[in-house]
């Protein structure tokens, strides 16, 4: 999931709700979409801004680990595909910032919060991409995990977010396929390539499981977000689904999932598997992951170095407007 630990504004029972809040909740329960100009509880608006903002930040920070390999892509075709994919991520960021703007927050405000550390992005992008196989693993596992969460979000209650998700999901499924395609090539390749693929799976497996956020029993914000249909499934449900989908894919590749406890549980109709190390997750979220400083540093540098560019464009627009008025 590209949004983790999103703080939700307090949950109310029906008895505690105002008539407006009650009718809002009834609309959501009926499956109606909420549109920008309509009344909504302040908590709903704030929670959505946090979630959509975090999702948008994840898309643009998420350009960096894959962007890292564009100049080193092994063939012209792989280079073009990777470029197109990373460009898609930037496009997703754009849709999502636009969706957030409909809730009354500007893109610049959200950027400022990212840069100052007041808003987060997905923990996964703080892990390094060390080999070309990581381009495969990121597409297969990271985009795969993102899709798990984003497919249900196409039905989320907030109209602009839902519509952004519909577009994003189409592209994400292409991303996942291209990642898996890289893995297939690597696994059918030389022993060195196959070893690279196994190493990538070893490094990305647990960080990918962390993308869904901590277990539901520790996830304090889930209930209200689910009532508002901002969150559609629990973290554990999605993680289980992801594991069950991914394990046979790994088997097909001839790769071993790095979990000795991984076993099919006939009774529950799913795999039993080891939890990721949540202390690592919280350390990464707190800024202590392997690449936090580089990722945020790169975004801040891009923004600061680009200040003169953005100011130049604004100044020109003002001059052009003044010239038009003078000519009238």
């Amino acid at each position: 999931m590209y949004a983790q630990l999103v703080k939700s504004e307090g949950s109310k029972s029906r008895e505690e709700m105002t008539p407006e809040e009650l009718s809002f909740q009834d609309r959501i329960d009926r499956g109606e979409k909420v549109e920008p100009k309509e009344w909504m509880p302040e908590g709903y608006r704030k929670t959505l801004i946090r979630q959509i903002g975090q999702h948008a930040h994840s898309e643009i920070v998420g350009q960096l680990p894959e962007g890292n390999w564009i100049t080193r892509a092994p063939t012209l075709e792989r280079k073009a595909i990777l470029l197109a994919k990373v460009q898609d991520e930037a496009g997703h960021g754009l849709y999502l910032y636009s969706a957030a703007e409909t809730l009354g927050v500007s893109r610049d405000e959200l950027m400022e919060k990212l840069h100052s550390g007041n808003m987060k992005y997905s923990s996964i992008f703080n892990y390094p991409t060390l080999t070309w196989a990581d381009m495969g693993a990121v597409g297969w596992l990271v985009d795969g995990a993102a899709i798990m969460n984003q497919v249900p979000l196409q039905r989320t209650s907030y109209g602009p977010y839902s519509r952004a998700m519909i577009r994003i999901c189409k592209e994400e499924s292409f991303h996942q396929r291209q990642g898996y395609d890289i893995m297939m090539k690597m696994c059918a390749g030389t022993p060195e390539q196959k070893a690279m693929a196994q190493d990538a799976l070893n490094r990305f497996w647990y960080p990918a499981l962390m993308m869904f956020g901590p277990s539901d029993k520790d996830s304090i914000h889930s209930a209200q977000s689910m009532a508002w249909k901002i969150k559609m499934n629990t973290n554990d449900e999605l993680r289980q689904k992801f594991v069950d989908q991914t394990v046979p894919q790994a088997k097909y590749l001839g790769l071993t999932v790095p979990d000795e406890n991984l076993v099919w549980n006939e009774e529950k109709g799913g795999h039993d598997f080891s939890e990721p190390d949540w202390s690592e997750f919280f350390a990464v979220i707190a800024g202590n992951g392997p690449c936090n400083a580089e990722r945020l540093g790169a975004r801040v540098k891009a923004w600061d170095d680009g200040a003169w560019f953005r100011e130049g464009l604004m100044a020109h627009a003002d001059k052009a407007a003044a010239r038009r008025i003078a000519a009238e």
Partner: protein
Amino acid sequence: MAGSVEANAVGAVDRAVCVEWLQRVGDNALILGHRVSEWCGHAPALEEDIALANQALDLIGQCQLWLGLAAEVEGKGRTADQIAYLRDAGAFRNLLLVERPNGDFGQTLIRQFLFDAFHIALLRALTESSDPRVAGIAAKAVKEVAYHLERSADLVVRLGDGTAESHDRMQKALDLLFPYTGEMFTDDATDRAMAEAGIAPLPSRLKPEWDRTVADVLEEATLTQPGQVWQHGVKGQGGKTGVHSEYLGFILAEMQFLQRAYPGATW
């Protein structure tokens, strides 16, 4: 495919000459595409990030076509990838301008604009090439490059005539990069052979159109054209003949790393 070579105008010139020329066009696209792609995730605005990735994609796509044709004409069983990934710097034929580092965004834009203005003139002429394959690639690329030029010219104008700082940065970038434009319009034996066969225009014939485009845009941008300044690579010793700057070796070290480290692997 070798049989079709004779049916095309390319058969009218020495194959090696034609391959040499195709690498010039293809390498410009490859190396500039590489440079532009370095911005991915680091551009000053999200819209720029998207636009630059688009441009890099166009250029890589064009490079695949040009180098693919070079491989076909050469007829030695090489692929576009092998040409791109397995030559050393001395065998590259791109202009010095396109291997210049990105610098600040102003330098990236000026480099792009100066090249786009040349590129569009070249491609327009190539759409009338006596070789249908060359004309076909040019017809596809010219649409993409028309947009590159529209975009780079627009931004040069806005930033030249923006704030004092943006003007200053654009002027400095122009002064820095203008000495690399002369190489675009030098004619050598390869160019003359290609022109005589009607496959490609003589580079020197593209200069009037380029001069007009550049002068118009710079005037609107309130920037001063450096005029008659020292030009790199015009005495037969430049990118077109394989004498590059120090930068190209580093570009290739990065670009070719996997192909060199794992020879023969399939990706």
